[in-house]
């Protein structure tokens, strides 16, 4: 494989080899320039904007000092920290129990619980907030259960808990999926209790994932404004302030400064996580045996109760959102109607917003998965251009540490720079697609990389010795084999694009308004029923597409992946 790019200069270079050279070297440079424009330059623009002191923009060093020392900023920062820490402290243990139940117990109906737990990923973050207002607001269905109304600290915390739960769950599920049965056998034969086995085997193997989940939840919460804008009341947080500074007061410098502050926790946790990962190393050896939990009525009963409670809460919240979108005039006329779905007569963009979102999600999913998968292939399966590979790898990890809010601000600054020829893309669908792909790049790329690493490098060597061009091998062999992973990336990008507001809120124009942005606008105008209706539409669209792709993926698995059944190490 190494030979692909280090051909002896004297040899006659065939057409196929030229094609490969264009495919590999050209592809990498193209990917590098795309990543630079879509990730690196917008981020640099934030720093440039934050520290330039243009009049009336609230940026510059003096403004920075003023901001950082003001009582208002300390209040906002304190609120943000309090909320984010509380959410992480609640979500991570719950998600751990839930993941443990799915991976290490024998409770029935695992597929259903797993599906339900993913519900919050399918809707914009405003939806839990809206549902909470209908449940615990002053006119809420369950208002009697709580002393104070929901607006404020607890409203934000509850909303964020629901919104971030599946994110934490996914990390913990994958961490708990790896277990070596031999260790547990050894422990029990030495007379260790299950609690002892957990302390000395399971916990050490998963605590790094717990830390990662904690950081992810913390970062998601501190940078989200969808929940606070709906149920925050007068309890304000930094992310909302950045949103208001830019959208409300057009103070881009101030927005950039707050954006930089919000970048800090993400960068910090990313660095610590990477450091821990290096120390930790690989826990699983190649000889590990798959862990199969022993039956235990008591344990399974307890976990089933926990899982049922969490799923019931999720169903309550999402069911309430759907129900409220159908109620004619809450709370005085509870008859059902589709009046809130008449989007044409209300603020927010109407059906155009929904159509735009579909277009945006489709483009993001198709273009994004092709680009990301091909990019990952070039990085993984060709060995030339070491420095180029390193640069690509580093750049594609950056979006993981950059919250959508900050990335969106970066796009505003970079594409609005005086004299930037790319300004023509500002406000267009193209830019929204590029920004969304960049925002969700890292996770998609990691899925691609994992799938590609399962393929032996001998495939490429065989292709080379048969003198088959690499790009043909890529299209005819690699892509079909990795189809399930590819469909997974398509699904992830589609759903993320349908639900995202954090970056898009800064980038849309009247022609390219998105459904999730419309939800925010309708709620702002007091049209909560309409906001619930649009959220419901997004929820059902994402869920249907996910189910469709899961079904397609299963079909593809059955037809082209029979080899996996007998493959070693699976």
């Amino acid at each position: 494989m190494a030979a692909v790019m280090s051909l002896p200069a004297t040899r006659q270079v065939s057409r196929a080899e030229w094609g490969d050279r264009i495919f590999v070297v050209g592809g990498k440079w193209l990917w590098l320039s795309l990543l630079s424009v879509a990730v690196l330059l917008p981020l640099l623009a934030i720093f440039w904007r934050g520290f330039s002191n243009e009049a009336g923009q609230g940026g510059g060093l003096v403004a920075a000092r003023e901001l950082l020392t003001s009582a208002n900023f300390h209040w906002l920062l304190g609120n943000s920290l309090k909320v984010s820490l509380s959410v992480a402290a609640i979500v991570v243990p719950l998600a751990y129990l839930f993941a443990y139940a799915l991976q290490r117990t024998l409770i029935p109906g695992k597929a259903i619980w797993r599906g339900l737990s993913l519900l919050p990923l399918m809707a914009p973050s405003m939806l839990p907030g809206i549902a909470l207002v209908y449940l615990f607001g002053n006119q809420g269905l369950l208002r009697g259960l709580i002393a104070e109304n929901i607006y404020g600290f607890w409203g934000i915390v509850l909303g964020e808990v629901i919104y971030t739960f599946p994110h934490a769950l996914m990390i913990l599920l994958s961490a708990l999926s790896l277990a070596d049965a031999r260790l547990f056998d050894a422990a029990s034969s030495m007379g260790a209790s299950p609690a002892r086995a957990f302390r000395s085997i399971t916990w050490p193997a998963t605590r790094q994932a717990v830390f990662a989940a904690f950081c992810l939840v913390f970062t998601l919460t501190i940078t989200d404004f969808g929940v606070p804008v709906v149920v925050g009341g007068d309890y304000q947080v930094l992310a909302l302030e950045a949103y208001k500074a830019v959208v409300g007061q057009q103070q881009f410098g101030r927005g950039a400064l707050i954006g930089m502050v919000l970048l800090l926790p993400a960068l910090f946790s990313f660095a610590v996580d990477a450091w821990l990962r290096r120390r930790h190393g690989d826990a699983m050896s190649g000889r590990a045996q798959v862990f199969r939990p022993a039956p235990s009525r008591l344990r399974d009963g307890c976990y089933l109760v926990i899982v049922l409670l969490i799923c019931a809460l999720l169903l309550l919240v999402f069911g309430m959102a759907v129900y409220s979108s159908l109620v004619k005039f809450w709370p005085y006329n509870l008859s059902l109607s589709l009046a809130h779905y008449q989007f044409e007569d209300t603020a927010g963009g109407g059906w155009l917003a929904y159509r735009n979102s579909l277009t945006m999600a489709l483009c993001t999913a198709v273009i994004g998965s092709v680009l990301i998968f091909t990019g990952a292939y070039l990085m993984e399966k060709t060995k030339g251009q070491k420095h180029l590979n390193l640069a690509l790898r580093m750049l594609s990890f950056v979006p993981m540490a950059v919250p959508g809010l900050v990335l969106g601000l970066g796009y505003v600054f970079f594409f609005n720079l005086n004299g930037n020829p790319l300004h023509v893309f500002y406000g267009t669908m193209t830019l929204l697609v590029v920004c969304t792909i960049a925002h969700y790049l890292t996770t998609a790329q990691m899925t691609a990389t994992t799938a590609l690493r399962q393929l032996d490098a001998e495939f490429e060597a065989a292709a080379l010795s048969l003198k088959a061009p690499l790009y043909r091998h890529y299209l005819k062999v690699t892509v079909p084999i990795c189809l399930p992973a590819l469909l997974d990336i398509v699904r992830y990008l589609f759903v993320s694009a349908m639900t995202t507001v954090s970056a898009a809120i800064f980038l849309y124009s009247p022609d390219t308004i998105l459904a999730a942005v419309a939800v925010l606008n309708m709620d702002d105008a007091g049209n909560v029923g309409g906001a619930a209706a649009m959220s419901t539409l997004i929820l059902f669209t994402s869920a249907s597409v996910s189910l469709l792709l899961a079904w397609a993926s299963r079909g593809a698995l059955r037809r082209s992946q029979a080899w996996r059944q007998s493959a070693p190490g699976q």
Partner: protein
Amino acid sequence: MFKPLALVAAVLTAFSLNAFAKTDLTVYTALEAEQLKSYKKAFEQANPDIEIKWVRDSTGIITAKLLAEKDRPQADAVWGLAASSLAILDQQGMLDNYAPKDLDKIGKNYRDPANPPAWVGMDVWAATICFNTVEAEKQGLTKPVSWQDLTKPEYKGKIVMPNPASSGTGFLDVSAWLQTYGEKQGWQYMDDLHQNIGQYVHSGSKPCKLAASGEFPIGISFEYPAVQLKRQGAPLDIILPKEGLGWDIEATAVMKGTAHADAAKKLADFSASPAAMELYKDNFAVLAQPGIAKPQTELPADYEQRLIKNDFAWASKNRDSILVEWRKRYDGKSEKVAGQ
């Protein structure tokens, strides 16, 4: 003999229609979303060669956006923005003075006094309290009749009002309190009112919507959503406080330097025309052209007399400092002020 000619003519017409594509006119507005559709339709029917592209948001946000885009204006015209905001744009030299065809029919209080005017009014919107009668009964609240009543302890946490930084309605309230009570007492009044505010919200119509659904029983809002919601059957009393109502003018202006000046001026012509007033009159009780408005059954006959004497020059000159002071006192610091 005539048939082929007619055919040629038809083909030529078809081609010319294709050749002269419509002018896209970018219009910034803070009008209520429900009004946009009929206004756009009426204008485009009168001007088939022009298509409106709306950019809509609350008054404060549209104002901030226009100011931020000063060096690279994106808007061709403004249709339906507070006169106090347009006056600021005028001071910045961003508006193109233009006398629309029906200017002589516009009341002299409802246009920019300069000649030709920088902005021309459409209608008046004014402060209103939306009071939910069902919730009032449930919670044993007496009906307020004045602005002062709203500071009574019984309303603690029950009142919603728009944030003046983002909402034009919020700003006209604050500006009216400062003008009627005087600066010192005005701020004192807002300090007291702040104790009773359950939430400050983004838009001027949201407080009334929240009152209509009983989420908060009292909303400081304006008359348009109040009338609309009452017609939809919401259990609302529309209260016009006895001290008088703060108000502002919704107005139209042409942006300086627009590439579509002709189309923008046609919009200004239309906005001041009797045909447009017929549209406005469905939504508003006081119009810029006297004699067209019809009384709205939900509002008292002497509605126009209840408006306070409003000094727009003062309001737009002091808008920035008022908002800074307001933010300092009430925005994001509710805990501190409450603790004093």
